[in-house]
């Protein structure tokens, strides 16, 4: 009986592995057939067009001014949205980190709720809030100031994207704040540092790995956004995803759309690798 029990303990390294194949195989087969193959299809379509295999589509993207502009737009929007997100998310993470676990469990719901709210509910809310006759402009005009253009332009995209990204940033920064031992603060206090000094020379530097990972995650997510620029942006705020959509649904230039998708996927993959480096090979930062 003991031998049997030991056998159970050792099954992880023994031939019992055969028993686990039927559990793993369906998911693996499904993902190869329905996820990997379609991605290979995109790669294939991006180099093989009407005139046989060529890199012409990538060349077109890199040289035509329209694509240059959309690429610049996308990078600019993503970087700025990430910066805005950091400004909103850091105070939240810092506030959460300094509560008791009980308070934190309640307050974190304020971050989780927008995280799980549909992007369309948010987009709708922002069109109602930010429009020319929207609630925000109503308030501004009531004070006696002129109405601001907040929707269908860069400002609208920024607000919508930041709102979408904040929870991701909070959840990236929070662990790096919680893992700081409280004695560190105590020590700094005893040595006479004020709370601003403690923040700048202890708390903030120690949380930078979390900030860096969060910024990377937000940048990737922003770069791939489709809904926010389409619904809250103007014509000059088109991003890569909207251009892909345009080529697939309007011009039917599938190869060009695929080449754009491949470039987007490559940038994302590189950033993901950087994140896993920051987190020491652990992508989810949960240990």
């Amino acid at each position, binding site marked *: 009986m003991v031998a*049997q029990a030991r056998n159970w303990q050792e099954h992880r390294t023994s031939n019992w592995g055969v028993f686990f194949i039927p559990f793993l195989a369906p998911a693996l087969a499904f993902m190869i057939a329905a996820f990997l193959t379609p991605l290979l299809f995109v790669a294939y379509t991006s180099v093989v067009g009407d005139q046989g295999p060529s890199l012409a589509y990538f060349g077109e993207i890199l040289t035509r001014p329209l694509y240059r502009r959309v690429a610049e737009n996308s990078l600019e929007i993503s970087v700025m949205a990430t910066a805005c997100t950091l400004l909103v998310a850091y105070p939240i993470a810092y506030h959460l980190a300094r509560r008791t676990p009980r308070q934190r469990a309640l307050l974190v*719901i304020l971050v989780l709720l927008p995280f799980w709210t*549909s992007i369309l509910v948010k987009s709708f809310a922002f069109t109602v809030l930010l429009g020319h006759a929207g609630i925000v402009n109503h308030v501004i005009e009531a004070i006696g100031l002129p109405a601001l253009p907040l929707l269908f332009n860069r400002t609208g995209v920024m607000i919508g994207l930041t709102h979408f990204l904040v929870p991701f940033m909070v959840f990236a920064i929070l662990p790096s704040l919680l893992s700081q031992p409280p004695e560190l603060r105590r020590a700094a206090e005893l040595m006479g540092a004020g709370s601003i000094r403690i923040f700048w020379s202890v708390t903030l530097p120690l949380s930078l790995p979390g900030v860096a990972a969060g910024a990377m995650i937000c940048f990737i997510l922003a770069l791939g956004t489709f809904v926010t620029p389409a619904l809250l942006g103007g014509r000059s705020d088109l991003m890569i995803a909207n251009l892909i959509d345009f080529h697939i649904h309007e011009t039917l230039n599938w190869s060009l*759309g695929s080449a754009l998708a491949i470039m987007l996927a490559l940038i994302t993959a590189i950033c993901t690798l950087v994140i896993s480096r920051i987190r020491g090979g652990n992508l989810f930062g949960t240990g």
Partner: protein
Amino acid sequence: MEERRHRTLPSFLASIAAWLAYAFLVLPSLIVVPMSFGDKDEFQFPPQSLSLYLYKRYFFESTWMQVTLQSLLVGFCTMVAALILGVGAAYGLDRYEFRGKRAITLFLLSPIFVPAIVIALGLYLYLSRFHLVGTTPGLIISHTIITVPFVLISASAGLRHIDRDLETAAMVMGAGRLLILRKVTLPLLRPALVAGGLFAFLISFDEVVIAYFIANVETETLPVKMYSSIHWEISPVLAAVSTLMTLLSLGVCLAVAFLQRSEQR
């Protein structure tokens, strides 16, 4: 005393910044709630009189109901498929060491890291070969891909929490592996399975980019209909739909928080 004030003013300012940020996160989705009780086909804030007019329109206009039922159907089937595939994979990965395990785990999780638009385009090109574009099975397959990673994460965390001695005890008492899985492991995993299932359902129910590429007029889901409605006309019914969807998110969010807490105990 002076030193004390020195210490509290910055932390007071930090608190204000945090509460402004919380307000920015939560207020936009709350603003649609009072609007949803307006009684006219135009936006009013605050509404002049409260009524369920917009809810009536949502529930009795066949177009909105049809897309809601379609989203529920796709969400439910996706949840079942993702649970079967994801929990199986988590069990296989957790209980067996083999070469290439890290690579396989990373591969199964990778749909999280690929932009939705890229997956959408791939599926659009690929599924059209099998005449699955514009069909409900096509939508279910697509949503299963993006939800399996979340079920896998949830189930793996659950499996790590399980007391392995309970399985060993069952083994010693002569139970076969399948019996142990059915009578010991799966019941212990229940909170993780419910959480993973809820995630899968909500992700599918809210997903728009892939559905926008794969669905057609007849198989349109609720988010796709919302997308075109915001894009082209902005119907006031959206306020009622948004309120109901926020309630759904809140329900799932609280349920998962509750499950995770009961699991930690």
